[in-house]
């Protein structure tokens, strides 16, 4: 049996390839639904603290690195478009183009992480550590004791968890590139790339909400 024939065959529990593709997609959506609730709890925590400490959260957002965070938004939106292009290319049988687009998306993912870690470095130099540790908090009086520690701890926790999801996404995209090069991923089993792309887009959606809450919604 050739590699092409093997790729076109569904796993034994499925009647055909279309059913297998649907099951893969549905399974990923159920997983993403659980991820929605995971991040949702953290967003609910953010809402609670923001209601308790509105002024401290405004100070925190205004102090954040807005330009770097916004640049990361552009990087991530572009990577999502490129991953979608890669899925379409694979479905059309343009395997090589799909592989190159995936490599470009991985590069953009690494750029995102590099910018993110640069941000963390800037904050560490300013004395902003999780848990309200650092000389930054001493400069803001009562807000440095109540509110700002919560803001920055949530910032590190939520953006850090998002960064971990980014790393997982980059690894998954890397596996797809490896399979394209190896010849085990093609139009016949494009649903495998489809589910990885769903994960990547979801990580983008999470950032879509992290960005305004931690970088934009400050004071005037």
């Amino acid at each position, binding site marked *: 049996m050739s590699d092409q024939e093997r790729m076109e065959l569904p796993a034994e529990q499925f009647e055909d390839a279309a059913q297998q*593709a*649907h099951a893969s*997609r*549905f399974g990923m*959506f*159920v997983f*993403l*639904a*659980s991820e*929605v*609730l995971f991040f*949702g*709890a953290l*967003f*609910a925590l953010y*809402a*609670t603290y*923001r*209601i*308790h400490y509105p002024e401290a959260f405004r100070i925190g957002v205004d102090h954040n690195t*807005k330009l770097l965070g*916004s640049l990361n*938004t*552009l990087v991530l*939106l*572009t990577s*999502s*478009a490129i*991953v*979608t*292009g890669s899925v*379409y290319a694979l*479905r*059309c049988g343009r395997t090589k183009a799909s592989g190159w687009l995936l490599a470009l998306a991985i590069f953009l993912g690494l750029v995102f992480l590099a910018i993110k870690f640069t941000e963390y470095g800037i904050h560490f130099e300013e004395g902003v550590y999780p848990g309200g540790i650092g000389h930054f908090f001493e400069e803001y009086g009562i807000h440095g004791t109540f509110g700002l520690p919560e803001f920055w701890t949530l910032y590190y926790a939520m953006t850090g968890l998002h960064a971990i999801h980014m790393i997982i996404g980059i690894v998954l995209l890397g596996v797809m590139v490896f399979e394209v090069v190896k010849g085990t991923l093609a139009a016949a089993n494009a649903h495998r790339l489809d589910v990885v*792309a*769903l994960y990547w*887009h*979801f990580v*983008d*959606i999470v950032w*879509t*909400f992290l*960005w*305004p*809450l931690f*970088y*934009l*919604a*400050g004071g*005037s």
Partner: protein
Amino acid sequence: MSSPASPARLVFQTWVALVAIAGLNFGLSYVDVGDARIPIALVLAGANASILLLVFMEVRHGSLSTKLAFAAAAALLSILIGLMIGDVALRGAPPIVPPGFPAPGVADIPSHSE
């Protein structure tokens, strides 16, 4: 799942829409809109998330079960965050105990063994 007639054009147009909305959100962050800042920022973020979900994640072409899986998560999340915000925002200050009427301590609570 049906593929669009011109995938490259669709991807490019969607990307332009996403960047335009993000740019609007970024620009509005420099405008003083008072307490409307967070709702405006979240509505624009929601618009971008919807585009990503419908176009790039192809939910608009998806099966009913797929749509329900995500809709259920969104509905449960709305209940979680909505109730939490409602509780925290409307809870108010704790009741003030007037002088001479101390709040009952553990020792004041009658025990069944007495």
